[in-house]
């Protein structure tokens, strides 16, 4: 049986549904290290660079990583060289990729989100903008903007004004009601949602019994959070039937991708699994095709939202 893996995020056509999760695959670095011409053979159907902010950020003090049961805690703290360096140094090289580039931006204030989105406006290399409103340690008191429906609305509205690009908003699961936050983002003009960013968590050093991360607490990713992510995708996609959703959180094999799509996603993103195997995404897309074949599902459109029907 012929299976088409093609999918779309609004106007953006993707050759298959597997993209990367922001902050987990640095193609410019990986291309130097992996003995594989990544620009020729790219495993993801779109590329999302690490989130950039208006000003450069050093990021949080180490240790920044700790493995937990089937999960990974991180507290990178949006370390990045700033949006100017991104535009000047990275974008020209990323434009050579054979897939669309989705720029991920964040601000240390609501205004900065608008400014960052605006700076992407004139860039033909950028196919879409992803607003990361879900990273902790930004703004006052270290609370992500995306924890609050009003602030989410304000932030997304500002970015919406600043850009005509396809606008994706990436939400945090660390809220009482993710559908309420999703609703605020959609009301304010989001074209699509990415679900989910990491889950708040903490680990102690087994010897010293102090928080192991330099930043004390961090974000949990990987298979451990897959049930949380699947639920978010399912609930939000049920509430906003025609909204494109990029599902992520623990996608590790083709079966996971299949399930996220069935829950209502139009595409899935692979994060932590790329640390097990940097090109895991290629295998995931292949397995997905096989599983769709076995089940007689001919297209992503047919699959997407199956769990809802």
């Amino acid at each position: 049986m012929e299976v088409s893996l093609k999918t779309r995020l609004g106007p953006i056509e993707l050759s298959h549904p597997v993209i990367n999760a922001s902050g987990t695959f640095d193609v410019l670095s990986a291309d130097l290290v992996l003995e594989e011409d990544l620009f020729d053979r790219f495993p993801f159907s779109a590329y999302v660079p690490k989130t950039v902010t208006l000003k450069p950020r050093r990021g949080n003090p180490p240790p920044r990583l700790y493995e937990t049961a089937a999960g990974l805690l991180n507290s990178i703290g949006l370390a990045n060289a700033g949006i100017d360096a991104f535009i000047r140094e990275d974008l020209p090289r990323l434009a050579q990729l054979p897939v669309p580039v989705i720029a991920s931006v964040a601000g240390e204030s609501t205004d900065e989100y608008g400014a960052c989105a605006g700076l992407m406006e004139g860039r033909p290399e950028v196919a879409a903008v992803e607003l990361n409103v879900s990273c902790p340690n930004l703004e006052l008191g270290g609370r992500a903007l995306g924890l609050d429906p009003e602030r989410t609305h304000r932030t997304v509205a500002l970015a919406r004004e600043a850009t005509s690009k396809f606008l994706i908003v990436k939400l945090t699961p660390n809220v009482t009601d993710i559908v309420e936050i999703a609703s605020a983002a959609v009301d304010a003009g989001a074209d699509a949602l990415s679900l989910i960013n990491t889950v708040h968590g903490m680990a102690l050093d087994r010897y010293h019994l102090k928080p192991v991360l330099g930043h004390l607490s961090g974000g949990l990713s990987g298979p451990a959070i897959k049930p949380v992510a699947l639920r978010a995708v399912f609930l939000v996609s049920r509430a906003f039937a025609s909204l494109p959703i990029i599902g992520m959180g623990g996608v590790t094999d083709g079966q996971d991708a299949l399930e996220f799509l069935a829950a209502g996603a139009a595409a899935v993103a692979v994060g932590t699994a790329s640390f097990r195997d940097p090109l895991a995404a290629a295998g995931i897309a292949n397995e997905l095709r096989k599983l769709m074949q076995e089940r007689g599902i001919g297209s992503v459109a047919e699959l997407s939202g199956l769990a809802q029907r």
Partner: protein
Amino acid sequence: MDAGLIPANLYECPVVESRQVGAYRQVSFVAPEIAALAQPGQFMMVRLAGKSLDPLLPRPMGVHDVDSDLVKMIIDPVGKGSVALAGAAVGDRLSVLGPLGCGFDLEGAGPAVLVAGGMGAAPLTMLARALAARGREVACILGFKTRSQAMVSELYRDVHVEVVTEDGSAGRCGLACDLLPGLVEKRRGRELPEIFACGPAEMLAEVARMARKHGARAQVSVAAHMACGIGSCQGCAVSRSGGYVKACTDGPVFDAEDLQWR
């Protein structure tokens, strides 16, 4: 998307030997490409092949030694990842990405002093041999907590090593750094030795301090928690004045004077 897209330097490697060396475990596996390329101080990202999610991620492991097609690593089983790797039995397969990172710069000329603390002794074996092969005078100080750890010093076959243990159960009693000033002082007026070090953070800080004091160059291999090993995650940050660098791609070996020491 491409059918069989796997990085050319990611290998599935059968384990051919696993043996206890005192407190540590030495595991040897078949990896001809890594054996051919690995430079002293480089590392690999290693996990048990397969789908088990416990442990979830590979662990950075230094290349201890190579022997024709074989690569050897020495494992200190302290936590989930290292215990799992130390338990790899003959016939088990490892998923290995490597060799990775920047190893030691061997281009210097004068005498070399190698200082290792605990597991830090593992990656320095190859270095000692490589430096000797370049005709450099090599002195090794290996510091351990106790005798069972110190047994790893037997793996420094052709190289003379000075063993130090904290409890005095093998070699001299003390810390590796205790011997460093003597070795440097001894050469007062002669060519200053270059220091190469691998070990716990406090030891490296002490090495850096002494090197600065004596005006000697010190190359240190730092430890950091790593997820990707290829510069993707920014998890392996190491402090340098003005910001952080990545241990996995900018290191793990750094010039001590380039780093920020507390």
